[in-house]
């Protein structure tokens, strides 16, 4: 479970998150929506201690994320908005293996995790391909595999469909659905609900650093009017 309690974050004297309270249960699929600059990315970067809170705290599986960043980063897999920002190696296999290698696992376990993660995103056997030679959709899936190889309890995706064409979007959504069915909780940050709404148990709207709506999609969609979020019904 990810529990956010009274989280406050400021950047250069501007309040980005204002006393945010939020709980994400294991296995839950949550869409975090809001216009640009509403604090979505800042919020999720606290989930795995990439940012330290200015006030309040984030607990991941009962542990303070800021106090135990490695535990938080192992439990919460993060997929960045731009996959290229996430890659730290030249080939698919080396990049997906990077996280498990940092956990000090033995080579056989690392190889198993890399194969399983690539299999989950439908890229089995592609270890030796150069990342630069992959399409945008394939790069997005490699980024997801990189997070999955840590075998996280929760997967956070920041704008997972941004910049992808229709086919690539479909491919990523299908992979996310399969992951969800396998019990991984998914938090997807977006301002475009069109493709992702079908996956969601719950939608949380964040505007100017404040949670303005939180509930099942059918009850929240009407509250999103005027917040710069693309309504899937239109």
């Amino acid at each position, binding site marked *: 479970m990810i529990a956010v309690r009274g989280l406050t974050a400021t950047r250069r004297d501007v309040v980005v998150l204002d006393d945010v309270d939020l709980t994400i249960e294991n296995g839950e699929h949550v869409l975090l929506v809001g216009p640009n600059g509403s604090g979505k990315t800042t919020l999720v970067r606290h989930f*795995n201690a*990439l940012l330290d809170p200015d006030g309040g705290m984030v607990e991941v599986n009962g542990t303070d994320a800021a106090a135990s*960043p*490695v535990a938080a*980063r*192992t439990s919460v897999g*993060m997929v*960045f908005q731009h996959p290229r*920002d*996430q*890659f*730290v*190696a*030249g*080939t698919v296999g*080396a990049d997906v*293996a*990077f*996280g*498990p*290698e*940092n*956990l*000090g*696992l*033995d*080579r056989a376990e*690392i190889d198993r995790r890399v194969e399983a993660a690539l299999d989950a995103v439908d890229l089995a056997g592609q270890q*030796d*391909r*150069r990342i630069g030679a992959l399409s945008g959709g394939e790069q997005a899936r490699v980024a997801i595999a*990189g997070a999955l190889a*840590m075998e996280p309890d929760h997967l956070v995706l920041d704008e997972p469909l941004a910049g992808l064409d229709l086919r690539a979007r479909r491919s990523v959504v299908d992979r996310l659905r399969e992951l969800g069915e396998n019990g991984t909780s998914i938090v997807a940050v977006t301002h475009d609900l069109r493709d992702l709404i079908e996956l969601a148990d719950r939608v949380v709207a964040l505007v100017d650093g404040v949670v303005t709506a939180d509930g099942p999609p059918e009850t929240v969609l009407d509250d999103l009017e005027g917040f710069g979020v693309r309504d899937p019904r239109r």
Partner: protein
Amino acid sequence: MLRYTPGATLAHRLDPRSKLCFQIGFAVAAFGGASVGWLAGVYALAALALAAGRLDPRRVASDYAVVLAVLALAPPIAGIALGPPWFRVEPALHSLRAVARVPPVLAVSAVYVHTTPVRATRAAIERLVPGRPGQLLAVGVALVVRLFPLVVEDLRTIRRAIHARGGANRPVTDRARRLAVQGLDRTLARSGRLSVALRARCFAWNPTLPRLRFSRLDYPVTVLGLALALSPLLRWLAQSAARSPLLAIA
């Protein structure tokens, strides 16, 4: 852009430690000799290294084009004199002999980059330099190798953006200034993003690195590397012995 490319060539199959040994030995040998025959041998060995990695020399030349252009300028500049006869051949030739040693060293380093994954290099350095200094050096090399292609790509993107908006008509100094300022800005941003990516994936000083294994092929390459590293010393000893009065009497 020159970077690691998976493959099954002879150079790909070698252990990174033997490749590092050969590379260092080769650089010592290239700068340790002066005769034309010696240089011809160095170039022949570099050609063999390129063949072992199935790397096209034209591609290497294209990737190092800027470096080679700067090197090509050195001999004429060295020959310029500030008075009559305005150009002196001897300093230019001296510079040419010095400059001529660099391209084969670049070619051998290109073969290494082309055939060795970054994490294998990191593992090799950590094995060769024990303890914390080895870890620091390995991480430093790994970060530079990861960041450098991104920085070069950014510079190319900025250059394309300048040209796409008619910037080619602007003075060279203006274009160079924009390239430098934007390049620095993007490099700093890249460094920041890479840092976040490394932390998000639990960056560790002592990760599980790939297994390195010496094959039968690695032994001759290592011996050759050591021999090349010692070659200037052996040559000097041989020359000294030849000039020795004791040897003359004998």
